[in-house]
């Protein structure tokens, strides 16, 4: 008997752990479909530790890159050209700063316009880490529950929608990008008001699925959030149509979107301290009193 147990120990353990994994996958998918993920204390701990560690790991590379571009490259310049090149470098630096100031002022203006457009308080956050898997699209941000950032809050830039906060720790949060295959957002065509679903494809493009009604969707159209899903407020930019796949035999057509946000250069984002009515109701039902008390965030009801 003892020998049999000994022999079956590993297969039984495999079955047990596989079953546990499958249950976790099913329950996590269900939770994400509702817009909220809770990975418990362990999940909190991992996010809380990962954010500063990844920020710290990025530091030497950033310093090295800056050091190389600003100083090391100049060391190889021949002596007779030093003065001239230094002058050129100084002028280029000045030019760069002026350009940066112009870009910054333009960005600040767009941010100001965006904040006026949505009467919702926003919390700026830095992207400190990317997803560890090449198949999932999420980022780690350096703001969490202590700063009022809760699961289910939309994340945007001055260009448009970035994604949704799906997990938070006291000082960090994970944002699922709209690019991820698990993401779906209710959207409308700004010009024709045709409605559809914007789905992540797991690539750098989005898909807009819509029902055919004449020439509702055309290349160049801008797709914005409809507000119907109850997760994102209405009027946030999602992307522009670059291709329309219209097969007459099919009722549901698909358009390919170029995302409004350049995800390859995502550095600073804004968390909208607002949760849509759908998620608010869900939280009311499930009760996140502790999270709210901890966060103490100023939030306004859904628009």
């Amino acid at each position: 008997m003892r020998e049999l147990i000994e022999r079956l120990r590993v297969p039984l353990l495999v079955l047990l752990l596989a079953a546990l994994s499958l249950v976790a996958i099913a329950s996590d998918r269900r939770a994400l479909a509702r817009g909220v993920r809770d990975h418990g204390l362990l999940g909190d701990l991992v996010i809380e530790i990962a954010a500063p560690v990844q920020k710290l790991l990025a530091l030497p590379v950033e310093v090295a890159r800056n050091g190389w571009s600003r100083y090391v490259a100049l060391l190889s310049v021949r002596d007779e050209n030093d003065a001239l090149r230094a002058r050129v470098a100084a002028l280029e630096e000045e030019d760069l700063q002026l350009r940066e100031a112009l870009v910054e002022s333009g960005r600040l203006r767009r941010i100001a316009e965006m904040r006026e457009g949505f009467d919702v308080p926003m919390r700026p956050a830095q992207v400190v880490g990317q997803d560890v898997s090449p198949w999932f699209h999420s980022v780690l941000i350096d703001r969490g529950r202590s700063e009022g950032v809760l699961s289910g809050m939309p994340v945007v830039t001055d260009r448009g929608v970035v994604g949704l906060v799906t997990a938070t720790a006291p000082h960090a949060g994970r944002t699922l990008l709209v690019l991820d295959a698990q993401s779906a957002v209710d959207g409308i065509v700004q010009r024709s008001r045709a409605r559809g679903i914007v789905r992540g494809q797991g690539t750098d493009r989005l898909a807009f699925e819509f029902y055919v009604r004449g020439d509702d969707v055309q290349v160049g159209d801008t797709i914005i959030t409809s507000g119907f899903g109850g997760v994102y407020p209405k009027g946030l930019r999602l992307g522009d149509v670059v291709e329309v796949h219209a097969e007459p035999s099919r009722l549901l057509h698909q358009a390919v979107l170029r995302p409004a946000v350049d995800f390859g250069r995502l550095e600073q984002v804004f968390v909208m301290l607002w949760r849509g009515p759908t998620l608010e109701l869900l939280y009311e039902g499930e009760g996140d009193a502790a999270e709210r008390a901890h966060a103490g965030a100023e939030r306004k009801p859904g628009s």
Partner: protein
Amino acid sequence: MRRAVIAWALAVVGLALNGTAAAWLPRGWLPDPALLGAVVLGLRVGGPAGLVGAWAIGWTADLMSGGPLGEYALLELLGWGITQLSARRVSLERTPVFAAFVFALCASQTLALGALGSAPPLGAETLAVGLPHALVNALAAIVARAVFDEASERLSGGDASARSSLRIDAGAGLR
């Protein structure tokens, strides 16, 4: 058990580095430390310790990723099992065989993720990410195996080397 913990710790360091380096490298050009951890455990640590170690590595990857919780745990569990079974049939100690095995395992994981709906369906864009990813993993696995062997020899008090070396029984003394 100690060697399983070493593999887990190495995988966690790799995952943290991955999360940082992903900002500068094209998608798919980084190895998957969770897969490498599971393969090395499958090769070096059998029984419940290796099994739980591989599962724990997958679970940690799940918590550090935006994917569904439990997906990598299940994949690494299978990865460990496949490595254990394969090591009995083919010589995974031979570097070219080992690299080819990891390439195939990584490609299978991509297909499994596609079947679970987490990776995009098989197409040009999936191949553009998946092929370099499998290739990088195949090469990184050789390094990971060497790093693990070195680390476990240093940290496990030399029991790894004792296992692989030839033992000569002195036998009874002559009278």
